[in-house]
């Protein structure tokens, strides 16, 4: 179709050009007329299509490009031609005349060219007697007539001659060989001599007319010199005369596409008939295809109160309306519902323009951003933890209380067999309790507040180390049978060396004394001792003096009554120290980090970076590879020593300071206690399989203590054999939580 349009354009351009030419040079047309005899094809071209060449080509190409009906359009164009050429008086005025007329026309020398031309184009141009048009004549095979004449009357078929008759006829008539049967008009036509000549010339390959000179001298009709616009003299390129390969390819492509059903021409595209004003744009698939499309927010739909006749409950009272005046303008309701008797009586809405304007402002000033909402069920993000019921036993309820202290209980310690409990309090007493009944067995009184108590881990040596101010006491509890008592008395007997020779350095750090008042040994340190920890074999114990700087951590040997400094350089303020439960490793926690030292090789093995502000307590898993660290900001860090120097887990449970953390010796439990008067119990399973990370499950929050002076639970310790937790509170009570 495009091609056709282009051609039409070209034609129109050319026509206009030729018109111009015609206007400027009217003489040429006259000349043209004169030359018509010589150049019959040119006569047409002036009025119709191509100025230079014969029309049949052009018309042919035009018709080809049109869809399908080649013949019909051809005949139309021919009719047009014949009409347009009417002024020249060449029309076949008598259609009925048929071939004879033609022959006559052709015989006319002046107009013979038309006949030639038409006979060239098609045979149908013989003046039609029949008007059925270009239909297959088979249709009329069985009919009596062959068609209709111009008046609409049937043209009867002639009676058919049989072969013998026709043979006889041909034998009779010498001119019979000149006769041709016209099937269309159902008549026989005799070829004239002129036509015969034409045919013979054509057979020879010459021009049909003898007077046509194919090699006539070229006459340049166009006057080049005065032409306003230059006109190309270039010959028409070849490509205009050959069918376009590209086009045929394209056509083949289209045909294939149609055959394969890729192009569907049946259904016209449905267009949306109306715009869904209140619909949700975000869900419309058409627009959602565009990534950047964000639908404008819809304005609020009118509700019942916007009705012209709302229910009474929507209508504010006069008081309410008055109170609106006292409100800020932004808070004031924009619309006050009113009742009207009919729709007619509703006045114009004052703020209509303003509202629309504000809406417009909202629409284009407010940036719209697509928020990515992740549709994940938050429950599914939680790690799958085993049920608490499966992790029993663990401490749950408090059944026993140990009452007797008059001030906050700072530290507790349980004897290895779990029969006795020692507690130290700010009231300056150390008490021994019977775990089973809550009976206070023994009380020691000191001048200062007790900071720390620690049972000797050996069951045979029931002695307690107590730190009071700058002193550490080793006290004999008097438990156990007579033989044990004898041993303990020997152990706790200390004779002051007669010659104070080595009093130079060591004495200044810590000095051993026999203490008769409390029946034990007194170790005097040069600074306040904050904690005492026993080695598992019960002979060595370490003391920590936070203010002691380089001599802050000391290790004492009870059997030899000997004190030594640790052979490592300390960095930062030490908080507490610990012996490894199985290996010769010593842990020292400063306020920021925890360091593990090998006591045998005397070197630093590992430094654990807690990332905490202030470490308050530390506990080692009985397996020795895991450490928990409690901090003053309420965080609890679990370190897997094999895994990394960074915490494996950080548990943020307590809103206040964690005062102590503890591992159970045999059950997979650990606990933390805090100043928020609670203690948390966790399941902390460490697997022997190195590939499996420790499993930590929070189990229980133990409440019951009351706050005193802002302090809550000061210490917590597990029973060594049972899944029980002892907590010491600032409310001077020790509680036992049982499973």
């Amino acid at each position, binding site marked *: 179709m495009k091609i056709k349009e282009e051609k039409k354009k070209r034609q129109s351009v050319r026509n206009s050009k030729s018109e111009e030419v015609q206007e400027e040079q009217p003489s040429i047309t006259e000349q043209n007329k004169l030359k018509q005899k010589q150049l019959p094809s040119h006569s047409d071209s002036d009025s119709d299509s191509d100025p230079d060449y014969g029309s049949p080509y052009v018309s042919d190409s035009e018709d080809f490009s049109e869809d399908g009906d080649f013949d019909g359009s051809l005949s139309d164009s021919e009719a047009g031609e014949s009409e347009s050429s009417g002024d020249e008086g060449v029309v076949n005025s008598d259609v009925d005349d048929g071939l004879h007329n033609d022959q006559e026309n052709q015989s006319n020398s002046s107009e013979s060219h038309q006949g030639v031309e038409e006979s060239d184009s098609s045979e149908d141009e013989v003046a039609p007697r029949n008007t059925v048009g270009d239909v297959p004549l088979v249709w009329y095979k069985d009919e009596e007539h062959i068609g209709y004449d111009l008046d609409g009357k049937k043209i009867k078929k002639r009676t058919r001659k049989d072969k013998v008759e026709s043979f006889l006829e041909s034998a009779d008539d010498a001119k019979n060989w000149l006769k041709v049967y016209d099937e269309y008009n159902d008549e026989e036509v005799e070829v004239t001599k002129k036509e015969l000549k034409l045919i013979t010339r054509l057979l020879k390959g010459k021009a049909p007319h003898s007077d046509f000179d194919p090699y006539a001298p070229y006459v340049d009709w166009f006057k080049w010199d005065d032409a306003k616009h230059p006109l190309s003299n270039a010959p028409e390129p070849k490509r205009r005369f050959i069918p376009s390969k590209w086009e045929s390819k394209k056509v083949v492509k289209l045909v294939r596409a149609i055959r394969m059903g890729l192009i569907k021409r049946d259904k016209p595209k449905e267009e949306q008939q109306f715009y869904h004003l209140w619909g949700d744009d975000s869900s419309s698939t058409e627009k959602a295809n565009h990534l950047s499309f964000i639908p404008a927010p819809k304005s609020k739909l009118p509700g019942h109160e916007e009705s012209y006749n709302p229910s009474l409950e929507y209508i504010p009272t006069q008081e309410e309306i008055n109170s609106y005046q006292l409100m800020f303008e932004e808070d004031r309701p924009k619309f006050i519902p009113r009742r009207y008797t009919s729709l007619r009586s509703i006045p114009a809405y004052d703020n209509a323009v303003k509202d629309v304007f504000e809406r417009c402002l909202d629409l284009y000033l407010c940036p719209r951003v697509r928020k990515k909402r992740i549709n994940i069920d938050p429950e599914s993000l939680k790690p799958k933890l085993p049920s608490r019921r499966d992790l029993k036993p663990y401490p749950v309820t408090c059944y*026993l209380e140990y009452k007797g202290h008059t001030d906050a209980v700072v530290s507790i310690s349980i004897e290895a067999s779990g029969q006795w409990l020692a507690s130290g309090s700010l009231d300056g007493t150390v008490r021994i309790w019977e775990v089973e*009944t809550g009976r206070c067995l023994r009380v020691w009184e000191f001048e200062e507040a007790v900071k720390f108590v620690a049972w000797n881990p050996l069951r045979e040596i029931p002695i307690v180390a107590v730190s009071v101010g700058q002193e550490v006491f080793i006290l004999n509890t008097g438990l*156990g049978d007579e033989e044990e008592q004898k041993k303990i008395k020997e152990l706790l007997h200390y004779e002051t060396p007669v010659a104070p020779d080595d009093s130079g350095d060591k004495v200044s750090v810590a000095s051993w004394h026999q203490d008769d008042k409390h029946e034990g040994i007194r170790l005097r340190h040069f600074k306040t001792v904050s904690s005492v920890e026993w080695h598992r074999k019960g002979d060595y114990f370490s003391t920590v003096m936070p203010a002691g700087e380089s001599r802050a951590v000391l290790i004492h040997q009870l059997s030899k009554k000997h004190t030594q400094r640790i052979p490592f350089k300390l960095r930062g303020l030490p908080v507490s120290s610990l012996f490894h439960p199985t290996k010769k490793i010593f842990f020292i926690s400063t306020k920021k980090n925890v360091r593990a030292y090998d006591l045998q090789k005397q070197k630093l093995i590992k430094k654990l970076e807690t990332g905490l502000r202030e470490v308050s307590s530390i506990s080692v898993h009985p397996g020795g590879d895991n450490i928990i660290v409690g901090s003053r900001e309420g965080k609890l860090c679990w370190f897997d020593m094999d895994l990394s120097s960074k915490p494996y887990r950080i548990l943020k449970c307590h809103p206040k300071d964690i005062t102590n953390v503890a591992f159970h010796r045999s059950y997979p439990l650990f606990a933390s206690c805090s100043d928020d008067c609670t203690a948390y119990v966790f399941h902390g399973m460490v697997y022997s399989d190195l590939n499996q990370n420790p499993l930590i499950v929070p189990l229980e929050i133990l409440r019951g203590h009351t706050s005193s002076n802002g302090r809550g639970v000061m210490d917590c310790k597990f029973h060594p054999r*049972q899944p029980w937790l002892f907590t010491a509170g600032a409310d001077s009570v020790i509680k036992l939580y*049982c499973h």
Partner: protein
Amino acid sequence: MDIDGVNEEENSRRVQVRFVTKLKPPMTVPPLPIAIPSNLTRLGLSTLVNNLIQNGNPDWNTQPFDFLIDGELVRMSLDKFLLAKSISAEKILEIEYIKAVAPRKEEEPSLHDDWVSSVDGSDPRFIVTGCYDSLARVWKAAGECTHILEGHSDVIASVGVINRKGVEGITVATASKDCTLRLWKFDTEDSINDPIRIRAFKILRGHTKSVQCVAAQNTGDMVCSGSWDSMIKLWQTNDSQSDGDLVSIKKRKGNDQADESQLEGEAVSTLVGHTQCVSSVVWPQQETIYSASWDHSIRLWDAETGKNSSDIFCTKVLNCLDVGGESSALIAAGGSDPILRIWDPRKPGTSAPVFQFSSHASWISACKWHDKSWFHLVSSSYDGKVMLWDLRTAWPLAVIESHKDKVLCADWWKGDSVISGGADSKLCISSGISVL
């Protein structure tokens, strides 16, 4: 049959009942079916029966009764009970009535100097108590202390009366936290105002930790003791030096006339198996010893061979143990939770308790079967309560709240009294309990 004095409610349903009893004649009622309102509770039934008895016996003093239907005590209104047990109310219901088990009299508490840790009332003539002031006391009645047993250097954890056949006088064993057991002998005939102070005739040494419990064989020849060193030791109780079984018998202060001679004994055999403190032992039969421990197990030992014959595992720490009940086979134990559990070791293949009583609020410190009844138990708890139980109902029969502090021990005495000692240093006797 119309009974006057019974509050009949016209709108309530009625059930046909017949009262039966095993009680003696003055307390029987005619075994005729009567129609009673179905909404009667125990109190209503009790007044009804009292009225019935009074009809036949005008000078009858009313007393409370308890009622059994199909071997279960009625603890709610009759219709609810029938509904709950899905017993048909159409046919004649047979209700057995027994005397209500509840203490009727609270004796004056016997004051001690310190916490009363243990009590034994197996001999109807006297009560033995162990005390935290390391003295054991013998009481003839409430507030009447006849003997003081002194000699221990630490808290007495347990006392046990030894019924020795053919030996006049009374032998008592005490276990103490000073790792020793002591045996004492005294006569009950002494009736002097001041209590007599006695010293032990035999000291049993061998435990390395405090001894927690002691129990005597029913023949009285041996005692067994459990200790914090997780061992059970068996000891001979005889005092004769000629006994060849004793390996070393020393006469300590033999020359001194003022002091009685003190023997020292060593353990005959040691039962090893428990991993933690043995908190309670009983030796009800000649051949079997039952022990409860903090390692959550109850073990049965063959006394002859010292072999552990079977175990029952609990999930809690056990503090007390007693064997009794039906054919003296049921094991009752309490521990570090408020539930009193009863096992039946005759039931094969299960270690689940057959009964669980959970009305206490804290640890159970003691439990004892009644020595005659199959059904009755007494238990004491750290919540300060002593409770009487009947196996036929899940609720306690009676709650004795005479103690202000933890109750550490409880026992039956004379078959109709409950004695209990606690952290308020008192020995309380609740008498008048008509169990049978």
